[in-house]
């Protein structure tokens, strides 16, 4: 693949030599490399559909996610219900669309929160001297030695009720409108739990990037001509460290979607009647042998979406780190 794109690049250069020199940016190159990979085009398409459905899903859904039709329980797919109805007569297609919104929301927020946490701690470990590095290193080791899903689930179980109770108190005391309805706190607890589990990966990655990039000659050169350290960090370190971070973000986006489903499957994440692919699988797994579609539809949706995002991550890895080949 790399040889193919080199040939393509040389060809492009050969034609460009005749034309007035056109500037090609780092990101432009990466984008071109990304589009030259068939799998990452599948990934981009899946991601685009996912975000579209997450935003406009409720408008596209033929039914509401709670609307029951008790005369038509657990039906096979039909013209009225494209993917059939679930065990209590709700339209499966609509619930899958709403589930996409839940999964995307959780993945987006938990990835962002953990990125911010991991970025700050990673920078602190890389720049803050030996003690900061050692302490943050120990903390990451500790958090990473608890299985991520168990820790996230434990956090969700432990913090959910105190937070809901606190929100109710605040609402009763001064009628703060946000706390009138506490269903979205489910989401908040899941964001927090997952973010707490994911940040060590980023912190380690960013620390390693800082330490290895600082040994590069162009950084040494900038230091020797007296460029201030913050300017080096912003102008040279950050853009070079960004590639691996973006790749990791993509993969942890799909992991976060899977983790949300897992937490909801265990009954500690998004709880019914809110739609989550995880709790949809959970409530029908006992009857997989005679209503296979009720399990297969959310399971296949989750599988396709995570696969698509992983393809995108893989493509981004090739596009952004052309030297490194396929890293983890």
């Amino acid at each position: 693949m790399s040889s193919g794109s080199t040939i393509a690049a040389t060809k492009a250069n050969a034609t460009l030599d005749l034309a007035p020199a056109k500037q090609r940016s780092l990101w432009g190159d990466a984008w071109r490399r990304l589009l030259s990979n068939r799998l990452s085009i599948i990934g981009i398409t899946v991601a685009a559909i996912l975000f579209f459905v997450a935003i406009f899903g409720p408008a596209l859904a033929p039914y509401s996610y709670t609307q029951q039709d008790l005369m038509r329980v657990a039906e096979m797919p039909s013209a009225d219900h494209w993917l059939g109805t679930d065990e209590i007569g709700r339209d499966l297609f609509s619930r899958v669309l709403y589930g996409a919104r839940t999964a995307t929301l959780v993945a987006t927020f938990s990835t962002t929160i953990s990125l911010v946490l991991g970025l700050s701690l990673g920078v602190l470990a890389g720049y803050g001297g030996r003690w900061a590095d050692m302490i943050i290193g120990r903390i990451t080791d500790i958090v990473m030695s608890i299985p991520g899903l168990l820790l996230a689930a434990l956090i969700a179980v432990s913090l959910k009720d105190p937070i809901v109770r606190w929100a109710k108190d605040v609402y009763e005391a001064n009628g703060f409108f946000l706390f009138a309805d506490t269903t979205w706190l489910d989401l908040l607890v899941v964001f927090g739990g997952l973010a707490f589990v994911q940040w060590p990966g980023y912190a380690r990655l960013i620390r390693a990037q800082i330490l290895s990039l600082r040994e590069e000659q162009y950084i040494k050169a900038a230091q020797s001509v007296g460029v201030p350290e913050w300017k080096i960090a912003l102008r040279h370190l950050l853009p070079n460290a960004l590639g691996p971070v973006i790749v990791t973000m993509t993969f942890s986006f799909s992991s976060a979607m899977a983790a949300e489903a897992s937490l909801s499957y265990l009954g500690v994440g998004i709880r019914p009647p809110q739609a989550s692919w995880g709790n949809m699988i959970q409530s029908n797994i006992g009857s997989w042998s005679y209503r296979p579609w009720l399990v297969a539809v959310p399971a296949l949706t989750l599988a396709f979406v995570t696969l698509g995002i992983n393809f995108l991550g893989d493509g981004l890895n090739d596009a952004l780190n052309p030297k490194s080949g396929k890293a983890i």
Partner: protein
Amino acid sequence: MLQYLITRLAIAVPTFLAVMLITFTLTVISPFDPVAMMLAQQESLDTLQKDEIIERTRKQYGLDESFVVQFTKYVERVLQGDLGISIIGQRDVLRTIVKTFPISFQLGLAGAFLTALIGIPLGAIAALKQNSWADYSIVGGTLVFRSLPVFVLAPLLLVLFVLVLDVMKVPRGWDGLFHHKTILPIFILMLGPLPVVVRQTRQAVLDIFAQDYIRTAKAKGLKMWMIIGRHILRNALIPVVTTLGFIAEGLIVGSIFLDSIFAIPGFGGVAEAAFRGFDYPMLLGVTMVSSLMIILTNLLVDIVYPFLDPRIQLE
């Protein structure tokens, strides 16, 4: 060597203590009050009496003491092997875990073995045929299973094998590791960590392929299969060993979902039931044992690594 071992242990022990601190802190924040839960069943007590009894029992269990004192006592109890009594069914937590753990451990070991047996050759083939269709299909094909939970894979494979292809009956229960019922569960367990092993092996083989000694071996006319066997695989295995901790985590998390689907009376089923029932003592026990397994696996990797790679300095 001895000093190296001691340093590794000196890191592992406080790590485990810190894990206990995190889990214990979470229970203190949580709404779970063991005494209230215990007395919830006894409705015959009238309210006045109840408050008094709750007060007395709390004192008896030391729940009125400061956080530090409580934590110290908790660590003491855990070290003595007392993990408490579960809320659901009032079972001894440690005994329940000890009873169910060997089943999951056997399944997990089989899964890890199979992951290595399939993942390492696949990764090596992908690297040796880099940028060919074989490489793409191995890397792309295993990517499917990356971050795909067991409860998604298991029903899909069950539908495929039992309903569509009709090649097996639904495997349920536990009749020892070498019963044919365990084939599908172990296969599903293996798929989770497989992509990581494949990629790690692929990367390692690619890195080694670029080394001078491989060029020398080729130049002196050594047969390709000998180069692969003697030089490449031996060295490529070293970085793969470091993924062992990750594999252990994947297997533990996988078994949480696996056990109830296949009615396996294992550790994972206990964990799942504990989450569903908000059974705190059991949850703490399960989390602690899982973390201990990961810490021990990482310790094992640390100990084995210098033997595999003598370049690592023992410090």
